[in-house]
Structure formats: C-alpha cells, structure tokens
C-alpha cells in the first residue's frame, strides 16, 4: 500500500524534497495561522464591543440620575 521504502525516502522526495516540503510547509503554516488570527480577532472584537457597551450604559445611568 505505502509507496515509500523508508522514512528517509519519504523526506527526500526523490531529490525534490526542498520544493515539495517548501510547498506543503508554507501551506500548512498559512492554514494553521489564518484561523488563529481570525479567532483572536473575534475575541478582541467581542471584548472591545463589551467595553463600549458598558461605557454607554454607565453614561445612560448618569444622564437619568441627573
């Protein structure tokens, strides 16, 4: 089933190792980092909007107290 004779063979990619792993490596990196960045943006956006919401409701309370 498995095409390769050894792990070293697999890594060497018949002499194309640099090109094959350079392609797969960067693609894997991009597909790992992009979701992390998007998830972090979601978190910081929620935190910022919550701060704004609290600030607004405090301002509203002051206005009604006066």
């Amino acid at each position, binding site marked *: *089933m*498995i*095409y*390769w004779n050894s792990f070293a063979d*697999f890594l060497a*990619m*018949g*002499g*194309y190792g640099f*090109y*094959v792993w*350079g*392609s*797969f490596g*960067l*693609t894997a990196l*991009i*597909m790992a980092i*992009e*979701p992390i960045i*998007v*998830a972090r*943006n*979601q978190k910081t*956006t*929620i935190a910022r*909007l*919550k701060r*704004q*919401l609290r600030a607004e409701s405090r301002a509203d309370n002051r206005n009604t107290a006066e």
Partner: protein
Amino acid sequence: MKDRFNFYRFASPATFYPLAGALIPFFVAISVLFGLAGLYLGMLVAPTDFQQGEGYRIIFIHVPASWMSMFIYLVMAFWAAIGLAFNTRLSGMMAQALAPTGALMAFISLWTGALWGKPMWGAWWVWDARLTSELILLFLYIGYMALTAAIDDARRADKAGGLLLLVGVVNVPIIYFSVKWWNTLHQGSSVNLAKSSMAQTMLWGMLLMAMCFWMYSIAVALMRVRTIMLERERNTDWVKAVLEGEGK
C-alpha cells in the same frame, strides 16, 4: 417582527450569526478528515509520476488552492451582484469575509507554482498567460480589501468593492481557459471528466485535497463573517444580547 418562515430569515444577521457559529465545528471536522485522507493517498500511496518524479506531488495543494482562488472570487462576485441588486446587508459581509482567504489561496497557488516551476521548467516565474492572470487575481483580492478598508461607511464600501469584484470577474475565465487560448508554458488541465490523464489514486488524492480546501475556506469565512457582523451591527439589540450572553 412577524414570525414568517422564509428564505430571507437566514439573510438576517441575527439569525445567521448563531447558525454560522454552529456550523463552523462541522466544517472544520470534515476539512480535517478530507485533508488526512487526501494527504494519505497523495503523499503515501500514490505512485510517482514518470515524467516529473516526486516533484509532481506539489499539485496536491497547487491545484486545489488554484481552484479555490478562482471559486472564492466567483462566490464574492455573486454576493456583490446580490448586494448591488437587492441591497441586502449580509451579502457585503460575506464578500468581505471571503476576501482574505481567497487572497491566501491565490498566494498559495503562486508560491507552490513557483516551487514546482523551478525544478520542472528551470524558472521560478515566467510571464505566461496562466501565471500572469493568476497574479492579477491576487492583485484583485488585495485591491478589493484595500478599497473596502479605505471607505469608512460600510454600505458604501460594499458598493464600491462590489463594482470592483464584478468588473474583475472577467479575469476568472481568462485564468481558466488561458491554457487553451494561448500557447502557455503551463500545462493543460490534468483533470478531465471524460478521461483523466492521472492515475486513480492521484486523482482521488487531489479531489480529497480540493474538498479539504473547500471546507477549510467555508469554515474560516464563517468565522470571519461573525466578527464582521458584530462590528457592523454593534448598535442593534441582537448584538447587545450576544455580548451580554458572552462569558465575563
């Protein structure tokens, strides 16, 4: 607020936000499954290519990324057309959520193409019709993102960006048919419904990887569209309810 059940219900951000949130883990899971199966077939089982040696294995990401770069652009242009025609809120958000992922797919396509071209053609880059039109696609993505980011009013940004998307859509068939229309250094399509020039395991490996990239793109775009929704609709009751529901 009438309780009518129709298609437009899902076009409302208040309904779509939780729906997207529920769908993300599902798309992530099937993307990983397709990816593992595709990598297993493509990298471990598939035989070598008698012309290109093991270097051909780059196509297992090059082709799916290239397909997605074109497909995502078409989907964005579709949303742009819907947005311009019906003035729907969600369509502009969808287009903006897809753009960075489409740009990354175009970049991966060019990057892996260069790493394939160097050993096979002896050059990282040539000004070939296929390569040049794909580079223009990357510039269209970047131009769309820069344009929409430069306009403060979200609805006007959607309109300007939508026009750019619709004008630029002419580039997609040029990329796709470039290998037929011109004498390009880039090889013709390897996947053909009538008779594929590839071995069965190679073909399946590539199709599985394409599904992996597709599901990945949907998952990331859904994640991104949720952030855009909160940002744009921050003054609405439903966003306030979502924010209050989020744990401290």
